């Protein structure tokens, strides 16, 4: 063992004295650090202006342009049949006969509506574009107003029972929307939605909104947050439906639900419900930060891959080419120990590289996006929802993603041992890495055939299989985010992939071992 440790020590000394290694390491560290800042500048900035002022200005602008075209809506329009009145809160529009065009009429209606809003709405308390209730109630209020105008355009002579029914309903809607909008009343908004239920809003959304009201009775959550909750609830409902029907939705196609998928989906429901209840759903900020870090990780890994392929591809063949292998062969160490020490050095570099990249990208993402944008990983164990610290998970997820990297490195190492030619080893394995990223094309050409499952590329994408709930913490799939993996559409089980890779690694190791340990050194 001490000999193995000494050999390993020597390997690390040798690598640490290579200029190329240091250049690439520094490049990797720089990429890890700078990439998040660069990526952040590419994400569109959230509008930082005052929401209430923004809403007010917009409405004023629209009102004024209508006013300049049509005049004051508060006056009686000097026309035999058309009259607008605007009291403080209610706007009623009467029209018996129309000389105005439909567009002009619509503008009058808008004018009245905006006048009422500007006169009565408390912009400071409820900024229109910010909270979900304000934004949606504003929209509902305008729609009801518009609907009422359209109904009033109908001439008295042609008004039927259906017209009266619609008229009554629209005035009710207008009242409810007004309640919801001006008094920030969620209950009124829900009633408005129920009234409109049969026409445009699904009961699914209605029930999810009821849940939102339960969570946020004051209506203080922003529109984005509320939308996220609603989407999560809808997703939960879909999962529950699928579980009840025993189906699994794979890329829009329904297939029978397997037992393992059932547990997984049940866990997903639990995690989502936990996140909804504890207000820790993935926000846009979080998913942006996670994406930024993931992309930075992959970009830095690209440099790590080049570095490691060179190390792996040259470890044996380079020593043979320069003859420095002699001082290892002459030494009283068995060849398998030399072989193992080189492999261990390689594994160390994969691990150290992954740790360095994760630490630095996390640090720099926290610096530019704020530490709160990096939440823990949620998973389900023994029926209860658990969390794993962000840094740890990010590292493990990255490492799981690097399993494929390790297979490529082993490939380079094997070719290096077997052909004893650095050029071939580095060239072939670099080629394979690039092949992997364009592998999806094969599936596009041939469609999904069984033999494709037995290609190494199909079994490289393990991170998503080991951590199936990554998307619930805002992470992207390997295939979507980077270098390796072919992403969605790959339905091979984790066990199949692991066995496949184990066999592949075993064959590679055996070939490498045979190439170096058994054969003579020329």
């Amino acid at each position, binding site marked *: 063992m001490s000999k193995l440790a000494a*050999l390993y020590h020597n390997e690390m*000394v*040798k690598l640490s*004295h290579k200029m190329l290694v240091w250049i690439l390491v520094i490049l990797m560290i720089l990429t890890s650090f700078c990439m998040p800042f660069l990526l952040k500048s590419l994400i569109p900035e959230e509008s930082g202006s005052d929401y209430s002022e923004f809403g007010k200005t917009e409405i004023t602008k629209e009102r004024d342009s209508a006013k300049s075209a049509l005049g004051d809506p508060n006056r009686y329009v000097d026309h035999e049949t058309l009259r607008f009145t605007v009291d403080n809160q209610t706007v009623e529009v009467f029209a018996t006969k129309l000389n105005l065009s439909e567009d002009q009429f619509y503008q009058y209606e808008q004018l009245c509506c905006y006048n009422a809003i500007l006169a009565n709405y408390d912009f400071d308390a409820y900024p229109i574009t910010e909270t979900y209730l304000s934004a949606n109630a504003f929209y509902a209020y305008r729609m009801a107003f518009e609907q009422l105008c359209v109904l009033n355009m109908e001439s008295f002579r042609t008004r039927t029972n259906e017209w009266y029914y619609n008229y009554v309903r629209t005035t009710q809607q207008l009242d409810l929307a007004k309640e919801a909008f001006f008094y920030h009343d969620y209950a009124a908004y829900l009633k408005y939605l129920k009234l409109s239920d049969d026409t445009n809003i699904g009961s699914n959304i209605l029930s999810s909104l009821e849940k939102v009201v339960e969570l946020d009775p004051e209506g203080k959550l922003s529109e984005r947050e509320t939308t996220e909750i609603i989407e999560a609830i809808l997703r939960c409902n879909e999962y529950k439906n699928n579980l009840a029907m025993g189906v699994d939705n794979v890329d829009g196609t329904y297939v029978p639900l397997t037992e393992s998928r059932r547990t997984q989906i049940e866990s997903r429901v639990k995690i989502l419900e936990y996140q909804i209840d504890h207000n820790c759903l993935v926000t846009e900020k979080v998913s942006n930060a996670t994406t930024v870090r993931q992309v930075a990780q992959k970009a830095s890994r690209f440099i790590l891959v080049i570095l490691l392929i060179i190390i792996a591809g040259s470890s044996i063949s380079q020593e043979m080419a320069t003859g*420095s292998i*002699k*001082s290892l062969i*002459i030494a*009283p160490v*068995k060849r398998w120990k030399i072989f193992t020490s080189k492999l261990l050095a390689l594994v160390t570099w994969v691990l150290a590289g992954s740790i360095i990249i994760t630490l630095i990208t996390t640090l720099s993402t926290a610096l530019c996006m704020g530490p709160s944008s990096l939440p823990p990983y949620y998973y389900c164990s023994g029926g209860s929802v658990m969390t794993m610290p962000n840094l740890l998970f990010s590292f493990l997820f990255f490492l799981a993603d690097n399993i494929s990297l390790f297979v490529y490195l082993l490939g380079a190492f094997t070719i290096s041992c077997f052909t004893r030619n650095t050029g071939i080893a580095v060239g072939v394995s670099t080629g394979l890495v690039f092949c992997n990223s364009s592998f999806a094309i094969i599936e596009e050409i041939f469609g999904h055939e069984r033999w494709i499952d037995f290609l190494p590329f199909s079994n490289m994408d393990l991170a998503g299989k080991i951590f199936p709930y990554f998307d619930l913490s805002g992470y992207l799939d390997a295939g979507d985010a980077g270098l390796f993996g072919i992403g969605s559409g790959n339905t091979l089980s984790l066990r199949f992939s692991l066995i496949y890779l184990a066999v592949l690694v075993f064959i590679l190791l055996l070939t490498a071992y045979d190439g170096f340990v058994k054969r003579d050194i020329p």
Partner: protein
Amino acid sequence: MSEQEKQPALQIMNVTKTFGKKKAVDNVSFDLFPGEVFGFLGPNGAGKTTIIKMVMGFFRPDEGTIIINGYNRKTHYEAAMSSIGGIVENPEMYNSLSARLNLQMYARLHDGVTKERIDEVLELVGLTDRADEPIKKYSLGMKQRIGLAQALLHRPKVLILDEPTNGLDPAGIHLLRDVLTHCAHEEGVAVMVSSHLLSEIQVMCDRIGIINHGKLLQICSIDDFVNQAQSASVYRIKTSNPAKAKEILSEKYDNKITNVNDDTLDIEIEEEQINECVRTLVSSGSDILGVQKLESSLEEAFLEITGGGIHIE
């Protein structure tokens, strides 16, 4: 105590190695004893390096056993290999690292090599001043020296040097000779030196083995070899009529006359016989213009044993 009574430091027993169809080493056996310098002599391609590489662990012998310091190389690899040190072909190390670091790395693979020992061997080969320079700045001679330092670092029982004088300057050769003699005679190391240069072997070795076509042809002490060679030298006699001289001498030395030219005649006789030979010629009326001792006797003997020198298949 005679050499034969000592326990051999290196035993090579019936070793055979085949590359493809060619037998590079064919059933070679010999022992190496502590305290001797063994010269391994043979033309290029004779199998010297193959045997050395088998001893040093580069090749596995197809057949046969190698025992180093009492340990079978096959069953007790590490114990056997820790008693051996050497240089195979040119000494190659990690060029970007300094000599000292190279030695430190090599020392790590052996038990009980101290920092002081590293300084000691650097001093021994005269590289103390330049030990912290990277090897790539070294000349071939300096590389040989550092290779020697590496080979000696762990005080091996068996020291094997493959053509060690390549690239060495006269001072370096002198140093090498001193070091080897010191190691063998003072510290009791069994030293094996391979070479295709006779002169080198002649001054360094106690015993030599001659190999050609993978077969060990002869093993004898250097003194025996020199005696054997010196007992018959080729003399070139310059005379006005070589044909006549041949006639005169053929009665007595018929099969010893090796060559007859326009004005010279080559004859292979012992040193004591030259007087008589000249006298015979003079008395029978031939005029002697000169007598010259020809080629190095050792080389002649060597060529004779190896069958005429270089054979590369």
